[in-house]
């Protein structure tokens, strides 16, 4: 939809756009293009000279088993976090949708973890499950389970997954609740009159009608796991032990740290950009389709 009545100043609109365009060019397009450029270069150890090496950075990236490992870690991490946080949030949202007297209070009590910084969430969870002083690690020890997320890769992964899920439930809960509340009650009543019980109604009526929300949340959650969990991983495991929790984004950070492998890090950035653009494109195609509903 376009406005038919507008101002016809010639210069003013450009002046209004200038602040945003300057910020965008200086801190967005310029660095992004530098990342692309850098991915074709190799710098010497002192960063004084750089030479054009073509696709060499990409070749060594895709020849590096560590990179495939980080891809695998990312896939495992994102599917676990998305599956768990979506299903737990959906369970809570369906209960909160039940016309309870205290529904408002429960909503407030469920959504505040959204405001907790990922890095802080990570600190809370490593404290709870710290092998020597964690309050919840103690019962695990009593069951003579050798819990140690600082040394054992799967334990470390379990811990970052739990922290990331904990942080994401509130967001998914909010959107699921909104989605549930927009389903017309008459449809559910019709189902009830036809003799469908609550479970049957949920799986044959509510769940299919909720699928746009679910799909939207799926994409948002994957993007969340890609980028916003950096703080959690850095606080809980620092990518370790032995790269067991090094996701692709964490590897960009770790490989380029202290002027390390900047070319390789830049090549990874470019690969990530391509993945994110693909994800966003999927999201927008879906948004367009939703408009037609």
């Amino acid at each position, binding site marked *: 939809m376009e406005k038919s009545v507008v101002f*016809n100043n010639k210069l003013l*609109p*450009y002046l209004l756009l200038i602040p945003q365009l300057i910020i965008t060019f200086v801190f967005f397009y310029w660095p992004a293009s530098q990342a692309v450029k850098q991915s074709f270069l190799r710098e010497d150890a002192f960063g004084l000279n750089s030479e054009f090496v073509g696709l060499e950075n990409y070749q060594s990236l895709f020849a590096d088993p560590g990179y495939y490992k980080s891809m695998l870690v990312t896939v495992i991490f994102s599917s676990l976090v998305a599956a768990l946080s979506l299903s737990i949030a959906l369970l809570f949202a369906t209960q909160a949708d039940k016309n309870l007297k205290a529904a408002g209070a429960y909503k407030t009590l469920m959504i505040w973890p959204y405001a907790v910084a990922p890095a802080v969430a990570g600190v809370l969870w490593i404290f709870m499950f710290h092998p020597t002083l964690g*309050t919840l690690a103690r019962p695990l020890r009593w069951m003579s389970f050798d819990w140690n997320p600082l040394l054992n890769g799967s334990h470390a992964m379990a811990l970052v997954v739990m922290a990331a899920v904990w942080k994401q439930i509130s967001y998914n809960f*909010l959107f699921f609740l909104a989605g549930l509340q927009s389903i017309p009650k008459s449809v559910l009543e019709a189902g009830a009159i036809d003799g469908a019980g*609550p479970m049957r109604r949920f799986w044959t009526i509510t769940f299919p009608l909720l699928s746009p929300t679910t799909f939207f949340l799926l994409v948002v959650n994957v993007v969340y796991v890609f980028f916003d969990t950096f703080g959690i991983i850095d*606080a809980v495991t620092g990518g370790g032990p032995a790269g067991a929790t090094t996701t692709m984004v964490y590897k960009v950070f770790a490989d*380029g740290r202290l002027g390390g492998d900047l070319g390789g890090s830049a090549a990874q950035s470019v690969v990530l950009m391509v993945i994110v653009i693909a994800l966003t494109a999927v999201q927008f195609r879906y948004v367009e389709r939703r408009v037609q509903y």
Partner: protein
Amino acid sequence: MVEHRPWTNIIAYAILTFGVFIVAFPVYLALIASTHDAATVVGGNMPLTPGGHALDNYYRAIFVGGSRAIREPVGRMLLNSFISAIGIALGKIFISILSAYAVVYFRFPFRKTAFWIIFITLMLPVEVRIYPTYKVIADLKMLDTYAGLILPLIASATGTLLFRQFFMTIPEELLEASRIDGAGPFRFFWDTLLPLSVTTIAALFVIQFIYGWNQYLWPLLITTQDSMQTIVTGIKKMLYTTDELAEWQLAMATAILAMLPPVAVVVIMQRLFVRGLVETEK
């Protein structure tokens, strides 16, 4: 209600109470840890009831810093976090309301191009271009400055899209009426558009304040002096000290202080928060 079955409500209350328990427990534990002394916390047998060192821990965390390590007190970090979070929120609102105004209420060559140039920034969060952005900041001599903490994070399209969407819903008659009354673009913006946008501005402020406050990777990279670090980046440094035991009780007090402002914003301004969250995702 489709049908009345008392037991479904009981189950619902049970599940929700369990959910709230899961959500609250990690924070409760941190709160408890921040009221005990170092030995109790590190011993691994910390009780689940508050201890008597709360005042002492919070006083030391905020004003003194760690006892063994030379470390910046949290008071300074809180100030840095406030300045950068408010700077990011206001900066984003300022640049995006102006650009949305230009895109919606004016016709000019390259209007669509300008919109797309801004729109594409949605796709690439700062995490994928950290080192080149770091280099830009270093070249501009903005390391360890508030400008360096704030400016790169306001380069994003969310605000512009939100305001654009909102401006589209404002009836055209308002602009016609203002023009008949002789109002120019400044007058219309100031007297009509801005007052109508107050709720949208507030909702965006709430979301962006939380976003800015919770930044981690960016402040971690560009602050080298302890006096410039934000509270979220400061906590981790308390845990992974190289040569002495981490003071968990102070770290937990700091964690509580770090989550207090954004959580308070969500709880107190819940309606604006929900609105902002839903609208920025559209």
